[in-house]
């Protein structure tokens, strides 16, 4: 399928060029091509398929076959804007067709009503720019349903009393429960909480020509060899290519959005595999390059016409980065859980989704899941209790005792938007193509760190109630590495304080649209991919309506 039915010449003006083929780019490619538009998708990484995916940890984790590589595209980091950034690997994203949806855990929670109206409900928060979205949960609900049915999500409707309203049940029952899920579930009930079967973007039944999960245990970090993980690669791109109107062009690294003197985008300049540069012409440009590369591309597209970067009259491009907080608690059980088998997560709880911030003294909310996402090698490097010897007889004994008996409770939570937390262009460091490197400026809002410590304590209580005799927690540290890349071109009605409107159209350039993690106004509670895809389905409807109304074509 990597060779599609159609190939366009860059000089040929297509209807849309989409930058990025990940969670949102895949959905937009499928929707826009299905709606009759001619589409080119530029993907900087290679086009791998299920037959290319292995359980080879060296290729995946060390050589980074599926993700961005710090040697090719170095990044720099600093905590505050007055510091000079130093070279440090600080973001990770999928750099292949399908993007980060290929290697993710596949936790698929909808955002709740509160996530869209938190600015007015609990704001303002000192030191944060927490505001409401220009759309509500109700606007997005039909598109969440679309994601569940078209991309493929397993779950049990109505199982969580905290779930927002839904128009349709899940298309598939939940995946089987794991040992971690059973002990977590029982303990949570014992403590008066409401655990429920995890909604996962993994097929529990064969569906749409794809196989159900075979429980191999190589999920987080890996591409799924049987296509059971519901990724853009497995679920969206094949449909887009089957229309005969969509070309997926891999190894194409976008570095500039071209604009005419009327301020309209005319296409996207990119490097091909040989580093020759081309301009793909298009009537409309849709950037889905992720919350790091989308703002970077806009900043790289600065010109005398747009001196602060394209679509950046607000100065908000790259600002308000929200990576989500996370905290881990570990427990070792008497009997084998064998949690290395299967997908990562089978039980979740949302009792802490909306915390009383006045009572607790900090803002935030989150969800907890019970999981095991180690391979044997990664477990040996970082899954043993603190103080365990790292070599010799005792090391080996601990591995044998703990590998099959350990689980993690993963606490996922809000990140407050803070304007100085941002992506920008590094003034000194360049990537292998000579382009300015991505620079991250980040320091957690104090409330985010308090929330993580608080949730971690609850996780420890659950582990105790579950009967884990050995328990420990990973220290809460200030974050310097982001995987969830959210909020950096936020959506809003006011062109002075936001980059895109609720149609995902940039306020400044009428035929330029942005849709990915950068569009988010708040961070949700830690599982953004489903919302990114729901936004993409909605954006496709809006863009289609605008195009049919003659508002995009030149």
């Amino acid at each position, binding site marked *: 399928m990597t060779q599609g039915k159609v190939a366009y010449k860059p000089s040929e003006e297509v209807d849309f060029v989409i930058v990025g083929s990940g969670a949102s780019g895949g959905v937009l490619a499928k929707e826009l091509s299905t709606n009759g538009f001619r589409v080119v998708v530029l993907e900087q990484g290679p086009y791998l398929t299920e037959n290319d995916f292995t*359980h080879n940890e060296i290729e995946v984790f060390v050589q980074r076959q599926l993700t961005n590589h710090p040697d090719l595209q170095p990044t720099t980091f600093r905590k505050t804007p007055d510091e000079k950034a130093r070279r440090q690997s600080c973001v990770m994203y999928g750099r292949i067709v399908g993007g980060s949806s290929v290697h993710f855990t596949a936790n698929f929670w909808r955002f709740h009503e509160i996530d869209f109206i938190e600015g007015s409900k609990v704001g303002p928060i000192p030191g944060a720019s927490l505001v409401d979205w220009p759309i509500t949960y109700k606007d997005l609900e039909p598109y969440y349903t679309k994601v569940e049915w078209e991309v493929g999500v397993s779950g049990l409707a109505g199982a969580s009393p905290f779930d927002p309203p839904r128009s349709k049940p899940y298309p598939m029952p939940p995946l089987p429960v794991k040992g971690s899920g059973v002990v977590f579930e029982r303990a949570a009930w014992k403590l008066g909480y409401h655990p429920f079967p995890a909604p996962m973007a993994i097929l529990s039944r064969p569906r749409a020509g794809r196989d159900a999960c*075979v429980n191999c245990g190589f999920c987080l970090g890996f591409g799924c060899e049987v296509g059971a993980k519901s990724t853009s690669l497995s679920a969206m791109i094949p449909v887009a290519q089957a229309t005969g109107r969509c070309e997926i062009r891999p190894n194409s690294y976008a570095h500039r959005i071209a604009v005419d003197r009327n301020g309209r985008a005319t296409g996207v300049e990119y490097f091909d595999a040989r580093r020759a540069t081309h301009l793909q012409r298009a009537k409309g440009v849709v950037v889905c390059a992720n919350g790091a590369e989308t703002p970077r591309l806009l900043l790289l597209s600065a010109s005398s016409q747009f001196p602060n970067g394209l679509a950046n009259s607000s100065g908000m491009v790259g600002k308000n980065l929200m990576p989500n907080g996370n905290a881990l608690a570990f427990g070792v059980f008497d009997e*084998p859980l064998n949690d290395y088998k299967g997908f990562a997560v089978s039980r979740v709880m949302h009792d802490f989704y909306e915390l009383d911030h006045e009572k607790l003294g900090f803002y935030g909310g989150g969800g907890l899941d019970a999981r095991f996402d180690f391979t044997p090698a990664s477990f040996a490097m970082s899954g043993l209790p603190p103080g365990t010897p790292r070599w010799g007889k005792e090391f080996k004994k601990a591995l044998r005792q703990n590998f099959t008996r350990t689980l993690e409770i993963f606490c996922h939570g809000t990140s407050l938007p803070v304007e100085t937390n941002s992506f920008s262009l590094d003034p000194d460091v360049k990537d292998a193509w000579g382009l300015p490197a991505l620079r991250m400026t980040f320091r957690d809002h104090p409330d985010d760190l308090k929330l993580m410590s608080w949730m971690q304590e609850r996780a420890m209580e659950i582990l105790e109630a579950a009967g884990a005799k050995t328990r420990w927690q990973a220290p809460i540290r200030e974050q310097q590495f982001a995987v969830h890349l959210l909020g950096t071109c936020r959506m809003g009605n006011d062109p002075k304080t936001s980059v895109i409107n609720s149609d995902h159209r940039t306020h400044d350039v009428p035929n330029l649209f942005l849709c990915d993690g950068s569009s988010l106004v708040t961070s949700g509670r830690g599982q953004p991919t489903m919302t990114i895809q729901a936004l993409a389905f909605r954006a496709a409807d809006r863009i289609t309506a605008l195009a049919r109304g003659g508002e995009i074509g030149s």
Partner: protein
Amino acid sequence: MAKPIDRHAAARREFLWRAAGAAGAAWVGTQWPAIVAAAQHAHHAVSAKASGKFEILTPEQARVVEAIVSQIIPTDDMPGAKEAGVVYFIDRALKTFASDTLEIYQEGLKRTNELISAKYPGAVSFAEATPEQQLAVLAELAGESPSARQRGLGLQPSDSFFETIQMHTVFGFLVDPSAGGNRDYAGWKAVGRDPEHTFSAPYGYYDKGYPGWEAAKAEAERK
């Protein structure tokens, strides 16, 4: 070296065929050539490192590496680093993904032998030292580099020889055999990981007999 290699390829094929079996005959029909190609590829990839010769390490260096890794993950009633072929994994690593650590190895191995000679007059090679002497020297090397590892695999390169060889030993013992380590699934057996690549529920002790979500919920509510 030849025999275990064939078993790797066989196990790999078994995985692919099992996966295909789960998908049903129609899927096999469309994917058949690809599956065969993938199995062939896996076979060649594994065979390629099956020479039994060292490409980077000298025979003396290989002896010292094998002695060190055999102390990091010793053999007991279960296979250790030696049985998993970790020294071959490291030799290949130094030619491929970890070629930038070659200097750390060259210096570290030299220093390991120097430590042995300094502490135990008459001893010249770590490989020939007594187990007690080896343990004492390794403890000294390990003590020089207090671990500050973060979660994740391979994200924390270190310029310490002990940290580097410890990490490579873990990799060589426990990575999926397609990555060139864990010969005969020796490492997975030693940690209790079933060498299969497909499973079905129940997975372990606690989920056996789980009555289903609704029933479990009703039971919890009665209490």
